[in-house]
Each structure stands twice: as structure tokens, then as C-alpha cells.
């Protein structure tokens, strides 16, 4: 039992990384724009598909394909911002309009890919090298788990430093809190929004690669559940709070895996219950999330 649990711990970390990276993207964008980018899961999915096609159709070396996938996600996110969200910001669209636009973008992208590629699950390319197993006592750790582990830690550390110590990162936190006053400091909030989308979308791309490596499959609908769970993690971490989102991502992703691990097999379809139950409990006890949110709450939420 202890061994099984230890083994699941590794999976827990991988899934936690995937959700953590997605959560950071959501929280950055929500923090700055006050809008939920429902299409974030599709940005994730596009990254996975780009990697898949580059490797299987064009025999591109995996590492290059992975980097291209992250770039593709970033570009998709930037296009999305330009076409869908910036007009909303410019015209000061009401929340409901933005909600509909965001949801619409998500459905559009998902069904566009379904139309071209059908919803059939395909095998995500995993380099043979990554299948190599190392043994810590009796626990098997794959090279891919190590790669996911190391790269996630590095990336999250870089993002945390960026947010906390660079001028643009500080500006992002300022705009997140009070965009109007930030403009009075000479900050072009549109530029800051673009940076948030670029970083958030790049992280979604990395998350997609990790997802592909961990689960080995991809399909047009793959972004829906991880996206939703990533969003829940962002809320749990305190909206706009980047380190909070990282931690919450691990809590939810890791927790979900361990929850299933501890359940008797017959009850494993209850897996999604974990996330929703956790959300319910935490919102009941601490509605603003586990950590301090990074937005100025006015009216609707109140504190």
C-alpha cells in the first residue's frame, strides 16, 4: 500500500504541475482583465496538437516540436486577445458580453478542431528516451516524470521572480489591482494585458506537453476538464495571486490523484467529485480563496 501510494505521489505531482501551470494562466488574465478566459483550455489543446502534427507528419525532432507547440499556444493566445478580448476592453463591454464571447471562443475552437480532426483520441508522441525508468528502491520513476518535475519547478520559479521583481511584473500586479490608477502612472495597460496573455498562454502550452507526456493521448476536447480544474485552482488560490494559483494547482491536481488512489476501484468514477467538493468546502469557509486575492473587490464580490 505504501509503495502504491508513493507511486501515485509521482503521478500526483505530474497532474499537479499540469493544473498549476494552467491555473497561473487563468489567474494572470483574470487578475488583470477581470475576465475568465474560457478558451484557455483550447489554447492548451492547440499546443498539444501542434506538437503532435509536427512530430507525426513532419518528423520534427521532439524537443523542437515541443518548443514550437509552446510558441503556437502563445501565438494563439495573443490572437485571441486581439480578436476577442481587446474589443471588449476598448468598448467597455459588460461582464455578460465578455462571458459570452469567451465561452463562444472556447466552443468555436473546440468544435473547429473536432470538425477537422474528429474527436477521436490520438496517441501523443512520447520520445523513447523518456520511457526510461529509474528505480528508487521499489518505486519506479520515469525519465518523463523527472523532466516534468524539473521543468515545472524551474518555470514556476521564473514566473514567480518575473511577477515579483521585474518592472513589468510589478506593473502587472498594479494593473491587476487598479488599472485606472496604473494608467495614471504612465503604464499602458493594453501592453500589460498582452504580456499577461503571452505568458499565460505559453504556460498553457507547456502544460499541454506535460499532459501529453503524462497521459499519452490528445483530442480536441482535451482542454475542457483540465481547463475547468485549472480555473477552479485559480479561484482557490485567490484570484490574481500567481504563487497562490501554483500552490492551489498542486493541491487540486495532486489531491485528485491521491483521492482516486485511496478510493476502492469501484468508486473511481467519483473522481471529479473531489474537485467540486473541495471547491464547495473552501468557498464556504473562505470565499476569496486560500490566499489573498490580487484584485480590488468592488460591489459584486465585496469582502
Amino acid at each position, binding site marked *: 500500500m505504501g509503495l502504491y501510494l508513493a507511486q501515485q505521489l509521482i503521478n500526483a505531482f505530474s497532474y499537479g504541475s499540469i493544473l498549476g501551470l494552467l491555473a497561473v494562466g487563468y489567474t494572470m488574465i483574470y487578475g488583470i482583465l477581470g475576465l475568465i478566459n474560457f478558451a484557455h483550455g483550447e489554447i492548451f489543446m492547440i499546443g498539444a496538437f501542434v506538437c503532435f502534427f509536427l512530430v507525426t507528419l513532419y518528423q520534427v525532432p521532439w524537443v523542437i516540436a515541443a518548443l514550437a507547440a509552446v510558441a503556437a499556444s502563445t501565438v494563439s493566445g495573443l490572437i485571441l486577445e486581439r480578436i476577442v478580448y481587446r474589443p471588449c476592453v476598448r468598448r467597455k463591454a459588460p461582464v455578460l458580453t465578455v462571458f459570452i464571447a469567451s465561452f463562444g471562443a472556447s466552443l468555436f475552437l473546440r468544435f473547429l478542431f473536432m470538425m477537422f480532426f474528429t474527436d477521436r483520441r490520438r496517441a501523443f508522441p512520447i520520445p523513447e528516451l523518456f520511457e526510461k525508468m529509474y528505480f528508487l528502491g521499489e518505486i519506479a520513476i520515469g525519465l518523463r516524470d523527472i523532466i516534468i518535475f524539473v521543468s515545472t519547478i524551474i518555470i514556476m520559479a521564473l514566473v514567480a521572480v518575473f511577477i515579483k521583481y521585474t518592472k513589468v511584473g*510589478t*506593473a502587472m500586479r498594479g494593473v491587476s489591482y487598479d488599472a485606472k490608477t496604473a*494608467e*495614471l502612472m504612465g503604464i*499602458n495597460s493594453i501592453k500589460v494585458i498582452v504580456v499577461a496573455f503571452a505568458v499565460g498562454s505559453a504556460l498553457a502550452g507547456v502544460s499541454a506537453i506535460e499532459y501529453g507526456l503524462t497521459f499519452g493521448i490528445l483530442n480536441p476536447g482535451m482542454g475542457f476538464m483540465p481547463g475547468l480544474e485549472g480555473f477552479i485552482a485559480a479561484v482557490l488560490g485567490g484570484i490574481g495571486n500567481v504563487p497562490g494559483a501554483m500552490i492551489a494547482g498542486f493541491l487540486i491536481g495532486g489531491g485528485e490523484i491521491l483521492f482516486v488512489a485511496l478510493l476502492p476501484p469501484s468508486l473511481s468514477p467519483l473522481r471529479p467529485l473531489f474537485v467540486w467538493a473541495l471547491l464547495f468546502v473552501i468557498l464556504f469557509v473562505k470565499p476569496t480563496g486560500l490566499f489573498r486575492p*490580487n484584485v480590488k473587490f468592488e460591489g459584486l464580490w465585496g469582502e
Partner: protein
Amino acid sequence: MLLSIKNVTAGYEKAQVLKDITLDVEAKEIVALLGANGAGKTTTLQCIAGVIKPWIGSVSLRNRDLAPFAPYQIVAMGISCCPEGRDVFANLSVYENLRIGAYLIRGAKEFRARLDRVYSLFPRLQQRLNQLSGSLSGGEQQMLAIARALMANPELLLLDEPSLGLAPILVESIYNTIQEINAAGKAILLVEQNVGLALEVSSRGYVLEKGEIRLSGPSPELQDSEYVKASYLGIA
């Protein structure tokens, strides 16, 4: 002429606030903009800062019309705003607020120099550099808001009700600092409900009522005016 507002009519969405106002500020002077709540003082500042645009008339900085520019560009041109109600970034530390105020500065030396100037004006802030600005007292937040506006090294500083909600001894201290800032060469447009105080530090003043300029002139004249004394200073 540094700042020139000519026949400006403006408001928000469909609500008109300002009606045909004309106002100007010369370099290095302190001008007071006075009036009761709702008279349109903050609206005037928002017009200057570029947050709202005049419906009729123009706002010009050194003869350059500010209408086509966004607020962040107007800051770069030399106007810095310290909004009403302080509006510090409560989620950031004192230092980070100052850092954001200096967003447009390139080069660490220039940043360092401005920081030092701000520290000499507000030593209290230097003691609380890493403190979350949301946890500062009202007076300290006001100091931070002014300091932050100064980090942009403006030629014209817009101050919106710096005395609001502060204890008299703090108000005195802030007003001394305002005079120091002016002595260092910055023009200040001072919006205030506290008429007596504002007229003491300024060289000229405008009285705004219901969106129109009711009275204007050198401050000593306004202080002596029967109208001002009766309506604003409570002296019959």
C-alpha cells in the same frame, strides 16, 4: 503658459459636469481649484489627465492639445496625478508603489536619484519601505500617493484633496511638503475643499460651482472676497 484649459464642457457618458470652464496654470506656480462636493473639481483633473475627454473646448500642455493622447502618454508629457482618496496600490509594498510611479524612467541612476529626493521629502516612507501599503495609516498613504506621483518627475502635479480625512497636524505637514515641492520647481494644481488652507499656499485660485467658474483671481483677493468668506470660510 504651462497648462491651458479653454472653454471646456465635459462630463461622463450622458451626464454633463463642466460647463465652459477656462483655467490656466503657469510653470512653477501653485493654483488652487476650489469648490464644494460635486462642483466638478475631480472631473476637471480627470479631463487634464486624459481619463475623460472634453466634449467642447481644449486642454493644452505648452500649447499642445492633449485630446488625442491616452492617460499613460500624458504622464510621459509631464503631468502627474495624485488622485482623490489616495488610491495607493494596497496589494503592493511602499517601495513597489514608488517603483510603479517611476515606470517611465529608464536607468537605475535616475531612479535612485528620484527615490532619494522622495525620501528626503517623506522620511516616514523610507522607514516603511517593505510594508504593504494597504496597512499604512491614512496620512502615510497620502504621503505615498504624493511621493508616487513625484517619482514620474512631473512639471505639473495634480493634487486632488490631499487634506481629505487627515488629522490637522498631518495636514499641516503635508502642506509644508507641498510648498517644498513647489519650491523645487514644480507647478501644482491643488484641488481642495479646505478653502482657507488652499488659498494660503497658492498664488492664484479658481472657485468652481456646479461646473462653472464662479470666481477667479490672485489668492489674497479671494481670501478677502466677501463671497468667498461667506460661502466657504464661514465668516459672515
